[in-house]
């Protein structure tokens, strides 16, 4: 998946920011960049876009060394942390800027721009000047503008920041469509963005890569402190049968998130370890999901205990209080029954079938 | 005069720009005769200087390049008296590239000719000379002053111009050639000098005017090409 020939290879040192990063993004792959403030995420994006000159190293896109190539010849669109809408153009013309600049006619550009504005839910603001927008509205327009550029590589720096919780799911769907089959570097603070949009996750800390792996791998079994704090989810990939995600013997009833989820299609069920109850006997009650499991590992995690279990070929973790772990005599090898409420299981269409 | 003369009495002389070389010598001569006096000469266009005097400039003596300007000051000056004259002549760039020989040649269309504008005294004189010579001048430029005419000719920009030859500074003498204009003898320009009314140093001022009009002054002026008053 990550060959040096096709896709993006970045290997840079930026001395004055103490950033030394090497990473690869395969052609058509979406890579999520996670990490605390000041970790160097924006710096990496800047280096790809040609806005930050690395002290040494190189950026290679599809075999072409971008060192010294001017930004507009890189075919790399950047949605920066600051929306930076052109103040002299209307919202519509801001979004139409990229198509216009790359040769499309005024008409075609505008109607494309209008479609993009509709996607992010601000079509009614088309004629406004950017200085008359609220913070979140400006952010959405900036997203539309970046999407309209239709670039080979798309760099998104916290595209969901400043957005109200209400529009985030919808915008996530928009991005999901837009990012499919595009080479994308996505900076985010939300593991759900990573899960839904990214194939792989790279975690930066203090200017260094501390974790790099497939999204599900990193989110379920984080190795870095930062990833552990924000992730550690249970993910069950399988097929959606209309009510539940089926993976071999395991059947996980859940509620589909907003996107259309075709019956029989690939899906992933996501639930927090905290949502998993552990019983000595099969429970009867509202929880729709009851799974027989064998404890494989018990590990204290601050004020709670992380219980790792095997459900057939699946690994599912539960978080319980130390007193519960003691009462239930949870030790490796113990046979238990797990219960998860269906309303705590979010089901998403799997990114790649 | 020069700096560092604290304690000396001063005398301020306003003089037409065309007098700059001669009055420099006369200043030195006067200061030699009056070691306690420091003379400051302010050169400029006569009309400019007159305007300044009218506006209250602290001048003690005024030497104008024409009588109209002096007359325009009326009571502001005391007893103006002529001290020099001059007449217009043709100047051409060194080597005379236009082949000018007389004022009649200045009517040729393919020559670049510059003269003073009719609004200024030397321009009026130029017209009178041309009329006397029966020549119709078609100048390529009508300049503000004799100095400007000379500048254009010295730079080789113009092929000929009409100037007071006394306005040709020594430093420019290599750059231009002078051709006499007999018809100009009829149009004589007279330089008057006067003490400025209300000068607190009227005695000293009169002494300076006397020096200019006297033996020594006339010698210096004659050497510079001025005619007698």
């Amino acid at each position, binding site marked *: 998946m990550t060959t040096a020939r096709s896709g993006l290879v970045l290997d840079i040192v930026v001395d004055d920011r103490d950033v030394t990063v090497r990473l690869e993004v395969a052609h058509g792959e979406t890579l999520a960049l996670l990490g605390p403030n000041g970790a160097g995420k924006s710096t990496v994006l800047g280096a790809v*876009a*040609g*806005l930050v000159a690395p002290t040494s190293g190189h950026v290679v896109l599809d075999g072409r060394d971008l060192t010294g190539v*001017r*930004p*507009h010849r*890189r*075919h*790399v*669109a*950047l949605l*920066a942390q600051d929306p*930076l809408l*052109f*103040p*002299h*153009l209307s919202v519509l013309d801001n979004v139409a*800027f*990229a198509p*216009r*600049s*790359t040769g499309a006619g005024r008409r075609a550009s505008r109607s494309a721009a209008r479609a993009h504005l509709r996607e992010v839910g601000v079509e009614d603001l088309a004629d406004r000047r950017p*200085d008359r927008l609220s913070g979140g509205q400006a952010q959405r327009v900036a997203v539309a*503008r*970046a999407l309209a*550029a239709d*670039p080979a590589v798309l*760099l998104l720096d916290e595209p969901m920041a400043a957005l109200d919780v209400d529009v985030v799911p919808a915008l996530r769907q928009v991005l999901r469509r837009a990012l499919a089959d595009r080479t994308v570097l996505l900076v985010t603070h939300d593991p759900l963005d990573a899960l839904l949009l990214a194939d792989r996750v790279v975690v930066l800390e203090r200017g260094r890569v501390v974790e790099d792996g497939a999204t599900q791998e990193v989110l379920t079994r984080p190795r870095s402190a930062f990833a552990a704090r924000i992730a550690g989810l249970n993910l069950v990939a399988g097929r959606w049968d209309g009510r539940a995600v089926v993976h071999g013997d395991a059947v996980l009833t859940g509620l589909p998130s907003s996107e259309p989820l075709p019956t029989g299609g690939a899906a992933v069920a996501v639930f927090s370890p905290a949502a998993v109850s552990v019983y000595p006997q099969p429970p009867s009650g509202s929880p729709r999901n009851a799974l027989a499991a064998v404890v494989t590992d018990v590990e204290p995690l601050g004020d709670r205990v992380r219980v790792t279990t095997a459900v057939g070929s699946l690994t599912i973790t539960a978080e319980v209080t130390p007193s519960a772990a003691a009462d239930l005599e949870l030790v490796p090898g113990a046979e238990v029954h797990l219960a998860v409420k269906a309303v705590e299981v979010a089901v998403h269409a799997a990114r790649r079938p | 005069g020069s700096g560092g003369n604290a304690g000396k009495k001063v005398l301020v002389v306003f003089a037409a720009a065309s007098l700059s070389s001669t009055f420099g010598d006369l200043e030195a001569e006067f200061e030699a005769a009056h070691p306690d006096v420091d003379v400051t000469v302010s050169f400029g266009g006569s*009309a400019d200087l*007159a*305007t300044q005097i009218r506006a209250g400039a602290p001048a003690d003596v005024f030497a104008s390049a024409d009588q109209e300007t002096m007359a325009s000051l009326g009571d502001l000056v005391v007893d103006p008296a002529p001290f020099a004259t001059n007449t217009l002549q043709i100047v051409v760039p060194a080597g005379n590239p236009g082949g000018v020989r007389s004022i009649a040649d200045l009517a040729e269309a393919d020559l*670049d000719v*510059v003269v003073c*504008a009719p*609004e*200024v005294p030397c321009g009026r004189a130029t017209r009178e000379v041309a009329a006397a010579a029966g020549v119709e001048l078609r*100048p*390529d*430029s*009508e*300049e*503000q002053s004799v100095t*400007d005419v000379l*500048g*254009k000719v010295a*730079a*080789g*920009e*113009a092929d000929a111009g009409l100037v007071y030859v006394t306005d040709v500074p020594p430093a420019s003498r290599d750059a231009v050639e002078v051709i006499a204009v007999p018809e100009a003898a009829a149009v004589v320009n007279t330089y008057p000098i006067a003490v400025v009314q209300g000068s607190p140093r009227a005695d000293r001022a009169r002494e300076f005017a006397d020096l200019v009009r006297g033996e020594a002054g006339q010698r210096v002026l004659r050497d510079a090409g001025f005619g007698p008053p």
Partner: protein
Amino acid sequence: MPRWLYVPAVLGLLFVLLPLVAMVSRVEWGDLGTLVGSASARDALWLSLRTSGTSTLLCLLLGVPMAVVLARTRFPGQGVLRALVLLPLVVPPVVSGIALLATFGRRGVVGPTLEVLGLDIAFSTAAVVMAQTFVSLPFLVISVEGALRTAGERYEVVAATLGASPTTVFRRVTLPLVLPGLLAGAVLAFARALGEFGATVTFAGALQGSTTTLPTQIYLERFADPDAAVALSLVLVVVAVVVIGVARPGRGDT
């Protein structure tokens, strides 16, 4: 804004306005028509407007690129270069005229070459335009460079990542963004060209209809016909007020 700033501001305003009022109060309004309406005055005004307009255009064509180069590139000796470009500001106009003569005059450095090409600049309207351009150019360069620096490169960078070529960025982002500064610079250049006199008379001379601009006319008449000089100055002032007033700087962001 602290209110005490009004005190020096009003003082400054008075300092500028009093002389203008004093000048205007000298105008004899009854004769104004005759004074201003003379053929020579009309010729001079028309020539002034034409040449100032042309030289402003030239300033834009040459000066905007110069400002962009100064603001957007870095090279050794840039500081010296900027200082040199701004020199016509500090050199007295008459000296500028002499320098132009030394370059484009018949015996100047490139003058003979131009003459061979059939371009005889001396005493032509073209010389007036050149003199005005020479003294006005720094005004435009300074204003535009300042505007470019203040605007920063951020928007240009965004535009480039959106795939716009440098030319497109220049046309669709840089120019519109610095438009207020550009307009201000153009107004300054026009005003300076309109008032230009010293370099013009020295380099181009003065002939009614082809090289005598309004300031030259004013200078000529200041003693011969002081009333006309004052009246013509008034015309210049009115033209300037109209131009500056029409092209006032755009609104600032709040």
